[in-house]
């Protein structure tokens, strides 16, 4: 892990003052769609992969 962090330090030889960061490769802005309710998973389907469920919710160890 130390070697990897030492390796990425090589970016510091580049002068990036004033360079706009790229977080998204293509020039697209927010993608909006109409706020229409679409079919979604049933409660049963959504719970099917739960490691521990009680039929209507996921069960986890006591929080408080």
């Amino acid at each position: 892990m130390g070697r990897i962090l030492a390796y990425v330090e090589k970016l510091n030889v580049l002068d990036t003052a004033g360079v706009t960061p790229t977080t998204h490769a293509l020039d697209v802005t927010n993608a909006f769609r109409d706020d229409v309710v679409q079919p979604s998973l049933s409660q049963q389907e959504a719970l099917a992969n739960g490691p521990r469920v009680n039929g209507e919710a996921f069960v986890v160890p006591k929080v408080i």
Partner: protein
Amino acid sequence: MELASLTIHELHALLVRREITARQLTESVLARIAAVEGRVQAYITLDREGALAQAEAADQRLAAGETNPLCGIPLAIKDVLCTKGLRTTCGSKILENFLPPYDAAVIEKFKAAGAVLVGKASMDEFAMGSSNENCAYTVPRNPWRLDAICGGSSGGSAAAVAADECIAALGSDTGGSIRQPASHCGVVGIKPTYGRVSRYGLLAYASSLDQVGPLTKDVRDAAIMLQAISGHDQRDSTSINAPVPDYTAALVEGVAGMKIGIPKEYFGAGLDPEVEAAVRNAIRQLEAAGAEAVEVSLPHTEYGVAAYYIIAPAEASSNLARYDGVRFGYRDLAADTLHDMFCQSRSQGFGPEVKRRIIIGTYALSSGYYDAYYKKASQVRTLIVEDFTKALAQCDALLSPVAPTPAWRLGEKASDPLAMYLSDALTIPTNLAGLPGISVPCGLSTAGLPIGVQLQAAPFAEEKLLRLAFNLEQRLDLVGKKPALA
């Protein structure tokens, strides 16, 4: 001739003329798997019964006049794509029993086309790796030499195509994970433009880089597969609403008037002489077909790996936070407290490379280090994007090696993650810039291992890549050369 060894377009012609049935074809693929899978180990999960049922449904459609080019074609799917009711592990123990409640968008498209889904192909855990050795289940062998890696992270997909254990496959590419294994296994692989293919139902690794694409036996099949999976999807907000061209129409003879840029930085120190010779020969072949080659420069190429190994782990550390043992995936049921449950489920469920990247990514995003790492890498990413914009203003596509060496021996880099990372230096910049790229076989090393050539183009210029790749393939005449599986 075994049906399993043929291409999509050859088999489609036989299927629509009813000279063969989809059931016969699927049985041929399943027989091939039974014969060679013990040596290749390309699959994590096989679905023989489902495949045969899908083949029979395809036969009914074909009998009724169906002409979809994928109807009845047996495909392998990288285990990073959700398949409803069919186990999807992402190569990780943390998803050992995960049965997706829905299909990925590309799987919906395949099912609508009547394709036959044979099984889920092996991969590096969460698509993190370059040799497919980071898989919790099977480590596929390179069909050309069983002591060599098949590449990664879509290694099982590439090995399955090369070994005729499917007709074509899907993979995903975040830093070269389609192109590099395609190169090492002697098949064609396309990483489409970022946004060309919906990622709905793709298990996320690094969301600003991930893209789904095909691995196939020839360029025409790659065009057919790309056609089938491309297009806008409202459920993936990064998918682009742009028309999908007819990709097979791009496969025309000759490349007269096309200009190929040769980025000098891709031919630097560390490039294997046999790889360089095969790639230089590919340049000469395209020149003979009418293209003009010009030298171009991508001066920030050497910083790609460093930028990637900040950006991709940063995104992964966020994406993989969802594997907490609450709603799906592995949970340590012995944990007494919620905190212990989170920690122990993740500690026991993730493998070492995934943990390494989560830790690096969390560190790079942490308060006080964000500017030094993540912001810096994102600025360098801008410089890399600008390099490509300038270079691609001078030519139609960039031609280079895919990987600096042919496939290495299993285990050779397994204990040296940095050496493994550096092997992706020539494919990572494509993803940072969101460009399309293709890997096409261009030769064999003296050790009998395949060598691939990479073409990259401007966003949504897949047709140029396909046309150049098609002409290269015609002149190199490597299609149909089969690995010995020894």
